[in-house]
């Protein structure tokens, strides 16, 4: 296979930079605050009112923004499938959002392998959402491997929460 022409790569890189906002408290969140403003609710995080089904807060908390995985696995559990079905429905109702799916691993593993494992997990989520009708053009995946744990202890209690794929909403790059 050959490299794509450089000019195309540069353009693509800019486009990625423009839509890549994995910080859900950043610009995407501000947009969501606007969307939820109709309820008269003021949310300093810009996540919107969790009681507003169109808000990022609702997606994150009520639908559930993450699924968990078994050790060294990327298959989706029945609980994960239930969460992802809810995500697919929410995305169908809120077509202005794009998503970045972050794959993560716990610290039990070498750095490179865990990057690959996180990518498998993110892809498993993406593939399921595609199967539920979410356009692949609305989704990007990224793996952080073991670089971004949310829990810091070195026991299964923490590891089980770190082996995750998180669906992060971003605004303005819909299908």
């Amino acid at each position, binding site marked *: *296979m*050959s*490299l*794509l022409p*450089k000019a195309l*790569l540069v353009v*693509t*890189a800019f486009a*990625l*930079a423009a839509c*890549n906002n*994995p910080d859900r408290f950043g610009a995407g969140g501000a947009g969501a605050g606007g969307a939820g403003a109709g309820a008269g609710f003021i949310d300093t995080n810009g996540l919107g009112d969790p009681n507003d089904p169109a808000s990022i807060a609702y997606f994150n908390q009520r639908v559930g923004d993450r699924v968990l995985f078994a050790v060294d696995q*990327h298959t989706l559990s029945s609980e994960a499938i239930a969460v992802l079905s809810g995500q697919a429905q929410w995305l169908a109702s809120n077509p202005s959002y794009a998503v970045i799916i972050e794959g993560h691993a716990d*610290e*039990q*593993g*070498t*750095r*490179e*392998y865990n*990057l*690959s*494992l996180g*990518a*498998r*997990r*993110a*892809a*498993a989520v*993406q*593939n399921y959402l595609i199967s539920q009708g979410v356009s692949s053009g609305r989704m*990007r*995946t*990224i*793996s*952080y491997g073991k*670089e*971004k*744990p*949310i*829990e*810091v*202890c*070195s026991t299964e209690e923490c590891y089980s929460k770190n082996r995750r794929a998180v669906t992060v909403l971003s605004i303005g790059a819909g299908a």
Partner: protein
Amino acid sequence: MLPRTDRGHTKAMMTVTRFLTTALTATLLLVPVSGHKAQAQNGPLRIEITEGVIEPLPYAAPDFVAENGAASDYARDIARVIASDLSGTGLFREIPAEAHIGRISSFDAPVAYEDWKAINAQALITGAVSASGDRIVVKFRLYDVYSGQQLGEGLQFAGTPQSWRRMAHKVADAAYSRITGEGGYFDSRVVFVSERGPKNDRQKRLGVMDYDGANVQYLTDSSAIVLAPRFSPNGDRILYTSYASGFPRITLMDVGSLRTQTLAEQPGTMTFAPRFSPDGNRVVFSLERGGNSDLYMLDVASGGLNQLTNAPSIETAPSFSPDGSQIVFESDRSGTQQLYIMSAGGGEARRISAGQGRYGTPVWSPRGDLIAFTKQNAGRFHIGVMRTDGSEERLLTASFLDEGPTWSPNGRVIMFTRETSGAGGQSALYSVDISGRNLRQITTDGAASDPAWSPLLP
């Protein structure tokens, strides 16, 4: 046979530029010290590393002679760095200055061997330093005390005052090389990831330092995650994985200018685990697409890309053989992480790891005879080595988390990352001999991970 490894004799002049951004924009000049013929004969002073050294060889390294007032600090400090290098190998034991009977007051006066025999010093390193303006000159000789003769020729190094530690490392490399018959490794650099903050908010930036942790320089800021840097074969460039674009991308940095460029960028993919070919013209790395990681080869100049593996399994952590003909890598095609070797052009791979547990991050030794790796087994991590056919596996370390070995330029020492467990877990750099002896923590300014050794500096 006494080793005759004064490689520097063939190079009257060593120009060191661009390898470092500030510290080493110096010119080191190496010439034999005149007036003394080398003693080219057999003697008892020899460490056979391969036989395993139980008792370190006692030596003396008195302060060098300061040939003028401005040189007095260098005369002391250079001797200390030499002793730190040699004793740090675990192969040598310094006899402290308090125990010395003899005193070296003139570099060219005959050595009173009896004074050094009396304290059981088998080797003696003497030297002299002169300093003027932006130039220092360092001379040294190595003596075999018991046979009463010089071991190899005296050498002289000239350079800027800022390069004094490098000159000390070069003296130590010459002494190490003459006594062990192995190449040295002290005049080398290590690129690594400097870490700050707790596990769940860790900041990472690239650093480069002398092999012993001195002269740290930072090459990036902490605005983006950086992982697993690797030197080019001549040390002028560094490959690493950066999240600066928002996504993991292999990045090439010119060490002199610190300019970076992203390599092999393709939309919707992640690229990581890059490593140079021995000629520095190609980069082998992992490219992930749709959740699947395979190995690719990039020609740096043309941008030409070749896919080396095509399997639904994880293929990553590739490393070239020193002759460039083969690649060792890890794959979970058998169900768990294991080590494989294939031609550098791709094709069939043969599995070499055969023991219990999981094997990753293989690195081919610069001598070509061994593969260093990370092993996970029964809840522990190990650094180990095996022959290239997978035989003679030996585990050198064990801890909660050891990973990512890198070879010293002479293939005798491995540096790696050790991370402690729990909420306060931190990474640090360690080194260990391939014998499994001499486990040491490298002194760094804060937490550090992902070391990669440079070649021996020119």
